[in-house]
């Protein structure tokens, strides 16, 4: 009854109306608490017993997990602590870090080129780009890694020269591809194919009116891409790229099959000697968790930077600690979810 004034005919017939019998059309009905107790009634939010029960069950399970991690002596946390900062583990960590960085940087540089080819007007470039992405995405990274490592069995020698003509330089492939180089090449080509698709999707998500407006102002093609299109494509590119970076950090561990001593392979070398398999795997795992957490924090700030102008857009509104909690493994999400329960 607090809505706009009703026409006299309707309000006269309305039994609960607190308005005078013959109201003037402009008079607003005065709310009368005594006459209408609903106006002062306490509001009770909806109950969600199912959510409480499921939360309780999950919390008990989580507590059991923590309990067993702490009390099961066969995890041998002492051993974990002893090897956590040992020289060979740190060496492996170093290789994992720079291999990931090099693969991601080179892969993305290549990926931008492949995405540009795919979006070009030249049908040959478009076709080549499509074929590359199709082929690389179809081949398991492990197979690719072994392919480059065993390239010598297919091509014992590689030469630089005129196509189908004279050769100037010739190298023996067996000496060319060490394990690390094979890993770098194989993973870079893999990242290039996937990142090309991520970048292409990001660019296509930008309204074509943006580059039209920029062209109409007389901006050159490179400037339009760098200043107008790419920054607007970034919000679509970054989350997927963050995923890929974190995935690649762990995917570098497949280099252990070609005896490259990364983080995982270095702990494998140790437990092959002392058979403390679980504690040493935990050493590697904890390092991966730490690195992933750091990368998530970096991703948060990058997303926030590119969300500017979005007026408290999705990424901008999420608080820092919320993102960290959301990305911190296992326990992080629980507190945020509990806050949502009532």
């Amino acid at each position, binding site marked *: 009854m607090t809505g706009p004034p009703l026409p006299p005919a309707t309000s006269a017939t309305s039994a609960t109306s607190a308005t005078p019998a013959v109201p003037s059309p402009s008079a607003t009905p005065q709310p009368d608490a005594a006459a209408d107790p609903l106006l002062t009634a306490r509001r009770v939010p909806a109950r969600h017993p199912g959510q409480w029960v499921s939360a309780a069950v999950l919390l008990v399970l989580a507590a059991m997990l923590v309990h067993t991690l702490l009390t099961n002596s066969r995890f041998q946390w002492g051993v974990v602590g002893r090897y956590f900062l040992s020289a060979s583990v740190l060496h492996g960590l170093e290789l994992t870090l720079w291999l990931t960085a090099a693969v991601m940087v080179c892969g993305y540089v290549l990926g931008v080129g492949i995405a540009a080819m795919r979006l070009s007007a030249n049908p040959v470039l478009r076709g080549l780009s499509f074929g590359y992405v199709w082929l690389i995405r179809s081949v398991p990274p492990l197979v690719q890694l072994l392919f480059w490592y065993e390239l010598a069995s297919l091509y014992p020698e590689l030469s630089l020269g005129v196509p189908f003509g004279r050769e100037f330089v010739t190298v023996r492939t067996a000496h060319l591809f060490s394990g690390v180089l094979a890993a770098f090449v194989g993973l870079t080509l893999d990242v290039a194919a996937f990142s090309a698709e991520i970048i292409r999707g990001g660019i296509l998500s930008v*309204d074509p*009116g*943006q580059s*039209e*407006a*920029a*062209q*109409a*102002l*007389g*901006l*050159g*093609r490179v*400037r339009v891409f760098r*200043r*107008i299109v790419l*920054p*607007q494509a970034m919000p679509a590119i970054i989350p997927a790229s963050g995923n890929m970076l974190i995935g690649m950090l762990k995917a570098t561990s497949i280099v252990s099959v070609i005896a490259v001593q990364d983080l995982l392979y270095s702990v494998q070398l140790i437990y092959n000697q002392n058979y403390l398999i679980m504690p040493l795997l935990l050493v590697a795992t904890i390092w991966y968790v730490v690195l992933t957490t750091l990368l998530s924090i970096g991703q948060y700030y990058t997303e926030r930077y*590119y969300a*500017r*102008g*979005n*007026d408290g857009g999705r990424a901008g509104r999420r608080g820092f600690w919320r993102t960290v909690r959301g990305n911190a493994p296992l326990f992080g999400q629980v507190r945020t979810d509990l806050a949502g329960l009532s």
Partner: protein
Amino acid sequence: MTATDRPLVRIRGLSKSFGTHQVLHGVDLDVREGEVTVLLGPSGSGKSTLLRCVNHLESPDAGYVEVDGRIIGHRPRGGRLHALRPRALTRQRAGIGMVFQQFNLFPHLTVLDNITEAPVAVRGLPRRQAADRARELLDRVGLAGRQDSYPRQLSGGQRQRVAIARALAMEPRLMLFDEPTSALDPELVGEVLAVMKDLAADGMTMLVVTHEIGFAREAADTVVFLDAGRVVESGPPAHVLTTPRHDRARAFLSAVL
């Protein structure tokens, strides 16, 4: 307003098809320096395509657009029209301002950066000087002090006025308006039209696609009526708007008035 012998814009025999659909059929049109020409016509009549051919956002299939004595997008040599390299096309576009229906402001840049981007990048203006000029232009379109806002914080009418200031920052000889008020709430249309009338009074050469008959009546020197890709009526607004000869123009005007 000086009317020179040679019009600033000369459009001759302009034709354009999208797939099998021919949008423009040999359009001829002149715009004299300092004059305002309003293009009227039902949707799909080719008004926007015609406008977009003027700064070569669309490439015509036949005919040509000449602005200030230069063929847009092409260089005539040996009886042929050679397509311009991107850099030369960029130079031509820099002298023609364009305002879009959807504003197309750059959402990740502040109002100031939206306006200074092209003068700094294309004209090589020092940043400080470009910023001073941008503030003058904002003042002119009635948005003094809003230089640090992002486009999303502005109303539609304010965004369109920023877009006009952005185009003016390149000191164009010709301004193109592609339905500048069609995406606006009715109560915001007036503020954009006021800025456009102000520009027209200052002697800016303007080619305007709009459905605002009132603007055409007040500010236009010439009204051109397009139907199905052909100019069916053209002349001073008093003439075309009150006593149209062509049936199609008469039907359109009686529907929108």
